[in-house]
């Protein structure tokens, strides 16, 4: 066993874990943050995407022990004060989901795209950047629309924050 201390959704967490525990296991099993899903078990479907120190990571391919001192954000941590994050609201509003299983990973990836590429996204960029997230239900069309709309809404939020 080893001990790992990290920040998850703004709260400090210390857990004694088997060294081979995956980050997704720590989140789901130890912390009961079950919004991060396991789809393919092998780092391809993207259902398990979270942010580690602000960067998107497939949490089924990272050891929890590697997150010592890191700040981890999951889908449960992005709504603020009872208000959905603009990207969450966009997925709901634009029907960017059906069974919903890929949705948390999609949203975490989408926010990461905005962080890296800015809020003015074109379709081609979004389609290319989302290649690591599989959705089997929607055909992606509404997901792409949602990401673009969510990015625009994030721009609005940033402008407001700056004012």
């Amino acid at each position, binding site marked *: 066993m080893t001990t790992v201390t990290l920040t998850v959704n703004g709260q400090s967490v210390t857990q004694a874990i088997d060294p081979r525990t995956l980050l997704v296991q720590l989140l789901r099993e130890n912390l009961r943050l*079950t919004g991060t899903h396991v789809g393919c078990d092998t780092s391809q479907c993207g259902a398990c995407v979270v942010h580690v120190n602000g960067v998107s990571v497939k949490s089924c391919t990272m050891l929890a022990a590697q997150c010592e001192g890191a700040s981890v954000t999951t889908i449960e941590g992005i709504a603020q004060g009872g208000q959905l994050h603009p990207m969450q609201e966009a997925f709901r509003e634009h029907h960017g989901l059906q069974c919903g299983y890929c949705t948390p990973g999609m949203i975490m990836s989408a926010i990461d795209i905005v962080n890296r590429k800015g809020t003015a996204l074109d379709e081609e960029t979004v389609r290319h950047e989302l290649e690591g997230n599989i959705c089997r239900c929607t055909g992606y069309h509404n997901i792409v629309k949602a990401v673009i709309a969510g990015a625009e809404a994030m721009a609005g939020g940033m402008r407001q924050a700056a004012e």
Partner: protein
Amino acid sequence: MAADLQGDGLTRAEGSGRPPHPVDRGAVPRGGDGPVHVHRAYPHDSAHLHVQGAASYLDDLLEPEGTLHLAVGMSPAARGRIAAMDLAPVRAAPGVVRVVTAGDIPGRNDISPALGDETLLADTHVAFHGQAMFLVAATTRDAARRAARLGRIEIEAQEPSVTVEDAERRDERVLPDYAFGRGDVATALKAAPRMLEGRLRIGGQEHFYLEGQAALAIPGEDGAILVHSSTQHPTEVQHVVARILNVPDALVTCEVRRMGGAFGGKESQATQWAALAALAARVTGRPCKLRLDRDDDFALTGKRHDFRVDYRLGFDADGRVSAYDVDFLACCGHSADLSQGVVDRTMFHADNAYFLPAARVASRRLKTNTVSNTAFRGFGGPQGMLAIEKAMDDVARLTGRDPLDVRLANLYAPGRDETPFGMKVEETDTLRAIMEGLERSSGYRERRAQVDAFNAGGGWLRRGLALTPVKFGISFTLTHLNQAGALVHVYTDGSVQLNHGGTEMGQGLYRKVAQVVAEEFGIGLERVRITATTTDKVPNTSPTAASAGSDLNGMAAKVAASTIRARMAGIAAALWGVDEEAVRFRDGMVAAGAESMTFADLARACHQQRVHLSATGFYRTPNITWDRASATGRPFFYFAYGAACAEVLVDTLTGENRVTRVDILHDVGASLNPAIDIGQIEGGFVQGMGWLTTEELVYAPDGRLLTHAPATYKIPVSSDVPADFRVELFPNSARQDTIYRSKAVGEPPVMLANSVFCAIADALASLDPGRPVPLDAPATPEAILNAALALGGGR
């Protein structure tokens, strides 16, 4: 303000006065006494939860104290007798609590839907590579999975049957051959001015529901058991668990709130994992959970059937077909599973949208040593339809006509409107209007000229264009399955609980049925609480399948709600001294003339008058019959129609290809929820496109599945989908008395993707005009390159 039972902000959206979503295309204008909640683009019932990661799937449920985790011990050979099974090393592994084998089954070792030909755990023989042989229960999932690899298993292995040809050589089938048809086909073929023969191989498809198979069984008192299962068919789970445990059905409850996708892959195939969890729970006395690892899920669960189709077609110089003689050879895997219905549906869709004056439609259900192939969105229909689309293309090549003109010449029309199984096609006008409407809106003719001109340039890049129809029969062809039940409660605060036999797998069924109930009571959608599907609320249900979920459960829920509404109207009428017919339910109020009160006040008044505020509803689809033995009757309540026009770009030197534009016009009748329906169309199309282009299942000669993860099995991603993707609903209203005149939407859009396959063939045809294109499905780059080489291109 009334409490928001769904917490999804719908109350606020209503209050803001704006439409719920820009995708309100196809919605019916509102105002006056028209419907409020149906024909409207509400978000998915759990959308607000999904975006927060707050919607629980099976693996997210809080595990009861002492839950054990399960893993399956799998067969190392595809066919043979079990000579020895030494499980001592498994038992000795760390964390292992119990190893379960076929000998531990108190009841019958049989998980088959009907025929008794499929074991829960192999006992004497194995019939496919990976087959479940034993089960490990351990304190952690990791411990169980590690231990499951330690079994020492000896199989007296035989050469497995993997292909159609293997099974034919052995002459092994899972079910008897079956055929139907019309007229003397042999004579008609001889009399035809021209005749062609063709062969098409069609690959299978892995469902790849994002949430893999999973079950959690919790033992209760006095022999009872509760099984949470990610299943489309809770009643079948209940029956099979009862059969395995040798207890009455009444002791078993199966519950499912939602699935993370299913697509047919959890219709019969969810049962085994639920039954294994239940068996382990019985043997250990502890809650037991089984979640298949994704690679094991690929290896252990059935897929879309792969086929070889052999056909002969008689036609004239205009490309009009006079006779079609087709043999569908289906690889069913090691057991029958649902192959009777699946391959029957292939046969029912052998005509797709075309009139065949003489037809012989024959099928063989071959036994192969592979997973038992099963339901997959379209349920055999796609394979039947792809074959005749290929044949239509062949005719076009041989006559030199535009494939669209050949299709239009053969389309069902008045007087040419009877299917080979004797059912009349009642909406030939809809079919033609969709085809001609899409021909115009897609600019087919102009683009055809552009594509031909581009290809005449002769480079190795070729463009292809195809416009193909869909006609899909709605109803279970096993007639007795066309029934549904619902249970509705009104509480004294005016809030409502809704339950029905349908399951939610992302398709939006729960939302649509809730819209129907809100409409009936004239209350806001936020007042209707949707509850998990469970066999102890609505019994003896059919699977949520055959696209019929909303048709069946929507009607059953409407019946239940209207029963309660009539009782409530009676109380209001007595109170106000008016006729019951004068009482209106709308906007959360109940009113007659100048009198009115809230729905909640009336509910309270009803309770005080000792009026029952709970009711069941039951629905059976009318006007359907099918006698399989004589091949007569009307198996479908109605047909759903659609058409798609796809354009592709193909590199004939590498086989690489892109879908550059797709136009779809699809008939969902009067849509219950246009946003959900358009989502079904887009998603179904892309799933079908994957089946026909990138998704290839490869078996090794020893029967092992080589493509057992998304690393080797290519599912469409966002960049594979054409950016230019135009989907419209065909303005229509169902002619049959369906729920608010809507039509089913789940499966038909898959077959819109036949247009992609035909467009790729169209691009290749330009290499050697006048010859049929020898392209098999899926049209992977490899298959495309092989076809290009055969046509003298590719170099």
